[in-house]
């Protein structure tokens, strides 16, 4: 039998202590940890106000909030207001995970980025380019960018809407044709045949890892814009977040090389207006050099910033929980003469945090501990009605004995 807990009894809209990161950026809230937030905000201010490409390594223990940060900062409306004009005209956040199939890693990375960008957006970026530079110059720019006539033309075709005439697709009119889009999308996913190539007017497909990263570089450049580098407000900043980079440990050298060298080439092809953030799970601060070995020299040499998700101090952990409670309140307990940390007394919350060993005090551990303590108090009838009953240090001591030993120890 499952029991639905009424979080309103503790003046909360619902359980604020989630086990997993939110799926949508709109759902994400930032609680406490002001130092960490400031590090990211400083990074993004720099990203919006200056052209240089940034390559950021985020590292910390499992549950330290790396994925949460990626989701939280994956919202344009959250990023753009960070910097005053002159700043980039827009940001384009892209979140992907390290491919789980090492044998096809470069292919999957390419596919995931394109799918995250969406073809409808890519078509818009290339159309804007053509509108700005005209068809011929846009084609030339893309062919230069990809160092290939057919690959550059394929990107250019994304911005050219065809019209069906007498059964043939012609690149003249304005009416979008679904069939044409489908054909072109198949080209980018290397699933078209020779007849399709002929219909598209392209002499070859996207055949190698190098091709894929060249095409990706050109597509991202279309999103960024081709204006002179110093015209910051005529560019879009790409924020590419790659999660779970520790999974590179699954890659054999023959799989790892094309992947990391491809990423390095992408960084080198986009020396401006790209922010690449890589999340790497590693708890022990002294093991940082080990992470560098797994990441490898190709990427290591390109890293410009490092952000360490260090375990919160007891004070930071207290502020984190208090802030999270504050953001999910249905009613303010202070106005009813209760502590701001309700259903915990202040001492009880401190006791719960101090019972956690420093390395097991990540936001995920704190969420788990608080969620279980409140759930248990509700289930055991310690809190019977809103404002009636509280989690005391004695309750926490008993809870720690029975629960934390098993779950958090």
């Amino acid at each position, binding site marked *: 039998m499952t029991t639905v807990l009424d979080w309103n009894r503790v003046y909360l809209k619902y359980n604020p202590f989630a086990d997993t990161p939110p799926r949508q950026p709109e759902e994400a809230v930032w609680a406490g940890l002001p130092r960490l937030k400031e590090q990211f905000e400083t990074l993004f201010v720099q990203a919006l106000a200056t052209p240089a490409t940034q390559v950021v390594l985020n590292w910390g223990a499992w549950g330290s909030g790396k994925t949460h940060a990626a989701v939280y900062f994956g919202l344009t409306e959250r990023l753009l207001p960070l910097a005053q004009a002159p700043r980039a005209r827009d940001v384009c956040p892209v979140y992907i995970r390290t491919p789980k199939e090492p044998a096809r890693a470069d292919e999957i990375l390419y596919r995931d980025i394109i799918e995250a960008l969406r073809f409808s957006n890519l078509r818009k970026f290339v159309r804007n380019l053509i509108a700005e530079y005209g068809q011929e110059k846009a084609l030339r720019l893309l062919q230069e960018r990809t160092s290939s006539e057919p690959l550059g033309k394929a990107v250019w075709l994304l911005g050219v809407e065809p019209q069906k005439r007498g059964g043939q697709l012609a690149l003249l009119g304005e009416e979008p044709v679904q069939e044409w889009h489908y054909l072109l999308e198949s080209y980018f996913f290397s699933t078209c045949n020779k007849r399709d190539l002929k219909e598209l007017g392209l002499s070859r497909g996207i055949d190698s890892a190098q091709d894929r990263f060249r095409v990706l570089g050109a597509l991202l450049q279309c999103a960024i814009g081709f204006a002179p580098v110093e015209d910051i407000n005529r560019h879009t900043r790409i924020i590419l977040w790659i999660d779970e980079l520790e999974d590179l440990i699954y890659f054999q050298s023959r799989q790892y090389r094309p992947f990391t060298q491809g990423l390095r080439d992408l960084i080198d092809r986009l020396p401006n207006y790209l922010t690449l953030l890589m999340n790497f*799970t590693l708890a022990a601060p002294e093991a940082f050099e080990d992470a560098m*070995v*797994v990441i490898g020299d190709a990427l290591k040499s390109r890293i410009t910033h490092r952000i360490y998700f260090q375990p919160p101090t007891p004070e930071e952990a207290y502020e984190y929980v208090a802030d999270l409670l504050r953001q999910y309140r249905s009613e303010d307990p202070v106005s009813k003469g209760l502590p701001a940390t309700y259903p915990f007394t202040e001492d009880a919350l401190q006791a719960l945090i101090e019972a956690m060993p420093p390395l097991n005090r990540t936001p995920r551990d704190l969420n788990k501990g608080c969620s279980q303590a409140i759930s248990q108090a509700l289930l055991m009838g310690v809190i019977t009605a809103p404002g009636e009953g509280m989690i005391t240090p004695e309750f926490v001591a008993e809870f720690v004995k029975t629960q934390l030993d098993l779950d958090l120890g």
Partner: protein
Amino acid sequence: MKPLCVVDTCSLIYLSEIELAKRSLHRWLFDEFEVVYSQLVWENEIQAHFDQMGSDGARLRQRNAGAQRVWEMASANQYEQALFNSFSRIEQVGQCDKCRQPIWREREVKIDLASDRDKGERHNCGVALDAVRGGKHRQVIFLTDDHNAIRQYVQPIFETFPLGCVWSSYDFVLYLFMRHRTRMIPDEIKVVFRDITAKAVKESDMKPKTKEIWTQRVGAYSRKVERVNQVISRLP
């Protein structure tokens, strides 16, 4: 006479189909050492995993070549009984109430000798003891990458019985570098470490903590190879 190397199936799998200085690691292993394993390891484990060893597995299978490496001993079960029937090892017995650090203590453990789990390691421990006790080999190298089995069985035995040393596949590759440094460079060795690791982690139950342990292993051995290189390059 070559040193005796008692090898476990997982190491044979992890070392398979990887080349170093244009030779397969299997060939290096069989050239450098007198490689042996127990009858049980050969029959129940190695033969069941030929496919995972690719061409190296095919070579072991060819004309039953792998059978030639079985260590001849009359009473493998008797060795297992004697070594593990009354057996103690250091185990976590609790957690400190204050600092929550694990508390370790040596204690007697009951091993289910009928269980197939880790039976290969237990029989290979018997091989190591028989080899040294018989007088033909003074010491052995016990090669295994099953870190759980090392902790549970191999290390407690080697701590009590001075039979030699326990190596992982990384140790073996590091040894090759130390011995044949003129034929290899540190970066090649690091590539081999990566390839061994990729095979090992594919086999494991990869909790985040386990992934971290492997990350730290690769890092530690990459530093060791640099250190070996640094020292040997200073020698005449």
